[in-house]
């Protein structure tokens, strides 16, 4: 009798691919026992475009445009990682002004990503006016990007050998003013996230991941740093990060609240890094001449807003590459996601999927 009762209580609920809280389609089959999740089975592949096969059709200089268009939000990081790999293979030394400008744009991209994530998280637990407020602040960052590069999410400023556009001193002044105004308005929003009792009751103690388990599952980015592991790929010193002063931000609780705290602190840290970049910006050229074709292979690791991303490029001396492989942070965080969902209530699953900051177009390229 007890065995029969147990078998009747298990049900399988399909989550996604269409769901109001998901920005992109992912499918999970949730095995439930009485409203608590016992196991989750992922299924991806709704947005697979086969971008990696296009290396056969576009030469290595035009491929930057394809690499950038893998994802709309992490787009600058993809372009920058690919171009860095090719420059290392061809042994090009890019000028310091190009390195500082790339760092500045990468930090602005991190700011708009974290503001977008804060808005989506507020929407996931029903606080719609906070969601609208975060996205209104994000528009100010997008205006700064449109002013300097000409595009809001796809910038098209990276090329092999440096950058295609330069920035005038008036634009840098305007960026500094906008960041000062933005910081004051962001304080109100983030105080609500950290202090409001409704928000706390939904996020504290939910979805805990211990540091040992997070390391075993290969997680990366703010998801890992919220469990207490201090690892940030920006400390490797690529581009101009070696000359800026900052420390990785870590929190020790491992629950959804800790991940929120890490991203909020990173938002303010990015504002500070942009100010440091503009203060130290050197003059000079922004590109070097490129001759010949790449020959060899290399792998670059950079810190995207969502975590650690890898770019592996293999070239054979002709204009077309042999292989381009992009391992994105969400791909590495999916096993971690399945681990945190176990034991949660069905109503919290949507919010926990959002705490890994899923970018499914990057995952499936």
């Amino acid at each position, binding site marked *: 009798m007890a065995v029969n009762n147990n078998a009747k209580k298990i049900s399988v609920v399909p989550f996604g691919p269409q769901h109001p809280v998901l920005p992109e389609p992912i499918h999970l089959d949730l095995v439930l026992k009485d409203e608590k999740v016992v196991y989750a089975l992922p*299924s*991806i*592949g*709704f947005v*697979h475009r*086969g971008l*990696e*096969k296009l290396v056969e059709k576009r030469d290595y200089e035009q491929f930057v445009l394809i690499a950038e268009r893998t994802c709309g939000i992490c787009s600058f990081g993809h372009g920058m990682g690919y171009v860095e790999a090719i420059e*290392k*293979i*061809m*042994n*090009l030394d890019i000028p310091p002004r190009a390195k500082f400008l790339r760092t500045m744009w990468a930090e602005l991209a991190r700011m708009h990503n974290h503001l977008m994530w804060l808005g989506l998280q507020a929407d996931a637990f029903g606080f719609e006016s906070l969601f609208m407020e975060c996205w209104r602040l994000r528009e100010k960052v997008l205006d700064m990007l449109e002013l300097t590069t000409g595009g809001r999410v796809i910038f098209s400023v990276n090329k092999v050998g440096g950058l295609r556009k330069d920035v005038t001193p008036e634009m840098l002044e305007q960026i500094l003013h906008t960041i000062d105004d933005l910081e004051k308005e962001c304080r109100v929003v983030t105080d609500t996230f950290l202090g409001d009792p409704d928000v706390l009751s939904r996020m504290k103690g939910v979805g805990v991941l211990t540091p040992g388990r997070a*390391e*075993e*599952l*290969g997680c990366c980015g703010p998801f890992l740093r919220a469990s207490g592991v201090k*690892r940030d*790929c920006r*400390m*490797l010193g690529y581009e101009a990060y070696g000359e800026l002063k900052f420390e990785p931000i870590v929190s020790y609780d491992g629950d959804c609240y800790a991940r929120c705290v890490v991203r909020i602190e990173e938002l303010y840290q990015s504002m500070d890094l942009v100010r440091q970049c503009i203060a130290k910006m050197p003059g000079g050229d922004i590109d070097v*001449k490129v*001759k*010949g*074709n*790449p*020959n*060899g*292979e*290399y*792998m670059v*690791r950079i810190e995207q807003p969502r975590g650690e991303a*890898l770019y*592996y490029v*293999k070239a054979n*001396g002709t204009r077309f590459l*042999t*292989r381009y*492989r992009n*391992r994105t942070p969400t*791909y*590495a965080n*999916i*096993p971690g996601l399945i681990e945190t969902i176990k034991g949660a209530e069905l109503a919290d699953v949507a919010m926990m999927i959002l705490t890994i900051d899923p970018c499914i177009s990057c995952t*499936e390229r």
Partner: protein
Amino acid sequence: MSEQEKNTKEGEEKEPLMDIKEIEKETLLDEVTRISFDNWRLIQICATKVGEEQYEILYTFGKGYQWKNLRIHLKKGEAVSSITSVYEIAYLYENEIHDLYGIHIDMLNYDFGGKLFRTGVQYPFA
């Protein structure tokens, strides 16, 4: 500029930029078990097509901020054993290699049976 041209001419004599160890596919599980005993974590697995019916698979491991790689060579139709007995998270990468390249991988812990990536053509990158 001249140093760059020199480097592209002497492609073979340049120092390798990555730390890659070439091994035979029979010794794969031994090497991987030895690496995991030393507390390295798995970062990624990548397959490349290097010629008609010739493939390579590259495994990347990391500890702190350091990293190292292993590489095996395969011909079309050969099977390789899975490393999910040592690193349980390798199932995502190995299912993707099977779905896109058609390389057969034995003894996976979670075998999606070719259904992880929904493609219009079977084995599109092969």
